[in-house]
């Protein structure tokens, strides 16, 4: 019996299929699988080539061969697809089998931080802006006219001894330049009153200098000072503003107390204390006496305050009969130390990274 061409081709087809199945068993990654796909059913694949021989078949044989070809090709495609899925599953399992020890992650890299004094300045500035104050600053090197004279601290008056002053040489080295490193932020009051007309509501914040250096005094430190000049401004207004400030700053209701005192640029003058916000409390919320900040007195001294002295207003061309004003001031460094429980002033200025990194937020 004559062997038909179609039998040969079909046989070759079956042989390729078997070869494919054998090769497929060896494959276990996606790249090899793709290669296999190309090798057998790609454009020039060994199976695809067999299809080209269909033209040599008798027309009656073509149908049977065509069916056989499609059957084989589909089977191969199905195997490829199955293998593909199996590989994916294996890959996924392998991927999920990974382990990484995250407990060894670097959590100690240096983290940026803002200095506690700056942080406190910002907090103060936020609160006072909310209370309707503009925030201003001025030069660090000041003229005695603004640092003393116009603040009713005349030359050769003992009130100048209240602040140990650094003097500054003039541009030609002259030592009688009348320049100083500002001893307080009060010259900014003068600058503001000279430059603006009432109503004035400002806080001046910044660096000040005094010739003092011991464990509790730094020759450079920071102050904030508030000034309000308007018609009908009273000392009661001052007390109320201070009360609102401490309440807003510590976010709790704290009493404010004034005690008479003397600052040459205010009259009447006072020191102001706030109710201690740092006292430890018992479970019922009652204050315990062993407070390291107020030492059980319930009060924390904050700073000085008073009604702007008429001579100061006059020195700034403001008529004290038409306008009145109040001012207050206190130290920012101490406030920062209280807030962050910093025990040594020196830590603020020597820049030890181990100190700074404690204030990352």
């Amino acid at each position, binding site marked *: 019996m004559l062997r038909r061409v179609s039998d040969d081709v079909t046989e070759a087809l079956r042989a390729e299929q078997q070869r494919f199945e054998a090769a497929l068993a060896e494959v276990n990654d996606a790249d090899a699988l793709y290669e296999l796909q190309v090798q057998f059913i790609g454009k020039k694949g060994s199976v695809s080539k067999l299809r080209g021989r269909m033209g040599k078949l008798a027309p009656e044989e073509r149908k049977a061969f065509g069916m056989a070809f499609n059957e084989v090709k589909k089977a191969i495609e199905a195997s490829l697809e199955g293998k593909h899925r199996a590989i994916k599953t294996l890959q996924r399992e392998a991927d999920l089998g990974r382990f990484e020890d995250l407990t060894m992650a670097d959590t100690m890299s*240096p*983290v*940026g*931080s803002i200095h506690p004094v*700056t942080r406190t300045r910002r907090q103060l*500035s936020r609160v006072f802006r909310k209370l*309707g104050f*503009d*925030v201003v600053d001025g*030069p660090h*090197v*000041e*003229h005695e006219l*603004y640092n003393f004279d116009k603040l009713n601290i005349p030359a*050769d*008056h*003992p*009130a100048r*001894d209240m602040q140990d002053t650094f*003097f*500054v*040489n*003039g*541009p030609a*080295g002259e*030592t009688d*330049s*009348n*320049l100083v490193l500002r001893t307080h932020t009060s010259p900014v009051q003068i600058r503001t009153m*000279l*430059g*603006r007309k009432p*109503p004035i*509501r400002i806080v001046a914040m910044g660096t000040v200098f005094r*010739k003092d250096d011991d464990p509790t005094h730094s020759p*450079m430190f920071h102050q904030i000072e508030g000034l309000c000049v*308007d*018609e*009908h401004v*009273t*000392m*009661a*207004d001052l*007390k*109320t503003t201070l009360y609102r400030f401490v309440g807003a700053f510590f976010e709790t209701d704290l009493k404010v107390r*004034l005690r*008479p*005192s*003397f600052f040459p640029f205010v*009259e*009447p*003058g006072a020191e102001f204390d706030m109710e201690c916000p740092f006292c430890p409390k018992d479970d019922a919320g009652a204050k315990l006496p062993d407070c390291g900040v107020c030492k059980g007195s319930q009060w924390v001294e904050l700073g000085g305050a008073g*009604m702007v*002295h*008429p001579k100061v207003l006059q020195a700034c061309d403001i008529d004290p009969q038409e306008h009145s004003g109040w001012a207050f001031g206190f130290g920012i460094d101490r406030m920062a130390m209280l807030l962050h429980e910093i025990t040594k002033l020196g830590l603020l200025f*020597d*820049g*030890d*990274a181990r100190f*700074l990194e404690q204030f990352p937020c």
Partner: protein
Amino acid sequence: MLISRQWIESLMSPAGGETMSDEAFGDAVTSLGLEVEGVTRFGDDLRTVVVAEVRGIEPHPNADKLRLVDVFDGERTIKVVCGAPNVPESGGKIAFARLGSVLPGGFEIGAREIRGVHSEGMICAEEELGIGPDGDGIMVLPSDWQPGTPLPEAVPGIADTIFELGITPNRPDALGHVGVAADLAVKLGRSLQPPDASLADVPAAEGLVSLEAPQRCGRYIGRTFEGAQVGDSPLWMRVRLHRLGLRPINNVVDVTNYVLMLWGQPLHAFDRAKLSEGRVVVRLAADGEPMTTLDGAELKLAASDLVIADAQRPQALAGVMGGQDSGVEAGATTLLLETAWFEPGFVRASARRHGLNTDSSYRFERGVDFGARLQGACATAEQLLCTLAGARVTGGVEVGGQVPPTPTITLREARVLALLGMAIPRAEIHRVLTGLEISLEPAGEAAWRCIPPTHRPDLTCEEDLIEELLRHYGLDRLPSTPSLPSEPPGMRVDPGQRAADATARLEDAVLDAMRAENLQEVLAFAFTDPADLEPFGVPADRTVKVTNPLRMQTSVMRTHMMPGLLRAGSVNVARHARAVRLCEVGRIYDWPEASQTFDGATAEVDALLPRERRRAAFFLCAGSREAAAYSGSSAATIAASVLSRLGARAAIRPARPAASWLHPGVQARVEVDGVAVGEVGEVHPDLMAQFDFPEGVRGYYGELWLESLRADHVARHQALPRFPSTSRDLSLEIPIRTPASAVTDALARAEAKAEHAQDGPRLAQGDTAGGAIEIVEDYRGAGVPEGHRALLLRLHYRAPGRSVTDDEVQALHGAVVQAAVAALCADVPSIRVR
């Protein structure tokens, strides 16, 4: 100043009702503005120390220097071993600490065997009881004192509470007990009971005092005494002075100190026998005239110093300190007592000139009374010199010069309300002011004409009187009723404020950006060591110098931010092994060469001030274990990131001229829109050594100049590209030291100058993250000539409204490269396209 509660109480009418606690007393004093800074209670532990009588003395059987004393303590006779040489004869009185007494310092008196003899109790010296400085011998008490009397009863002042007051410079009246008592009496509703202020009636001592400088001495009372016996003061006086921190010296000097503490009036007693011609002249010193003070200091006087001279030479620097020659010592019998008022400003000037700050100058420069209290002080001293030193007043004279005018102040009730926001009842106004010895008479409706007493030089205007009312009425009565600002805050836009706000926002933004770069903010001192600033190129005569620095290390205002950061960095490297990443926002100071111009109300003063510029700076330094963690590029990247957070795109360009404080090969300038805004680079190794960094440790630095930056960048939206970009690569061979920025700048310039079709392709940000011109590779090695590198660049092209064709991109790219390379080769001929 220290005050004795007992003494204050004795100067006021008795309190009704219960005795105030020391705490309440202190609170009352503080409420007057005389701040209590410390309280010490003395003498309660001395109630078991009693007056005792010596009944017999015999030698100690086993010790030469000890004796056995029979002591009668009012109840029984006790045998006590005593080592003091000055035990009085039988019948003499001593202070005896009974068995069980606990003396100051916690020393408990028990029964003891002393060299084989039983002893119960102790005969005491002043020092052992903490009531005086004398520890050389035991106290011998007046022989008429009653045995058994507790010592604190026999000597007032032993049991007392001492308050330390911080007296502000406006209150010279409170620098004596009378002044404090006067103020307190008004507060407590009691009345002042001042000591007798009348002077003995004596013949006028003509020529005793010549006042040649009446403008400097407003009043001078001279009183002469004879027959004085200089010796120890009585125990009560010694105790009182000791409690108030003064050392008893002799009865005459002690009297002047006692009166100082009582009236706040400094006095001076001269040994009149030592005064040439027995008289004094109040005159200005001759320039250079010598004087030796009581404590032996040699002064060279100035022509504006006021002196109390005798007929020949200065015997005291007026109001400051007496002279050595005429001081009262043992043996003096004739005295001249000076009670005077000297002009405050000049006393202060003299005290400062000669570096003498005395109890006397302290009071005179603040202003003592020239009225009733001055005379009271003189009277008390006179009386005490007579009773305690046995002196006789023989004559007196008073001369007067210029005293400050006494102001007349109108006080309006309406003004009280307007200033305080609180009305004070009229009766209270009356009570307080008259209580403070302010005379007042009605001046129209609800107003008074007031004349303050001469001991209150601080009361010069209406507000001063209102403060007096407030002090006494109570600051705790101020109500909580604020007056509202006449305009809602935030509605006013002051141009100066706008600038201040912008500056503050910029500083905040830069600092936050630096923190985001994991930098830690430090605060360095604004002044530094001149040596630290030498490398930074500001000539010494342009630096701002502190006239009176604490130390050389803080004597000049910084002209650069780097020294402060290096100092902190160096401290850190010495203390630990971590990486150091520090930053600071601060100011630098100098005298600019060109004068600055200012406007506004403060321009005149501003023109006299040095320039202050703001800088944001940072410093990086790897910890010792990770030496290679940073490079100059780290600093450049941080600077660029910080700027990007301000909305500015940084360009890092070669530094011209190079900064001498940075490594010559590792530094650059930071630019925004072609304007220099900072510098970055590696800290010069010499500087690292100068600041004591260990050898081999490299530091990196960057700074931004805040005056050149602005906050509040408002980003403007640009339409997203709708068509893909196309890129062309370019490989250039350039010398290693030719900055890449020179190449990219040349390409950008060439592209800008090239011809462009209206809607044709342009060099533009591509679809990758880099810019329009990306540096893909910086290759050095095989195939590149010595000293050169190959820069592989990728240029991105895009047309805004359409897809571009390869041909048009190729045409543009070719033109750009050709022009750029031609331009580059003009400077550096070895540059070529690979």
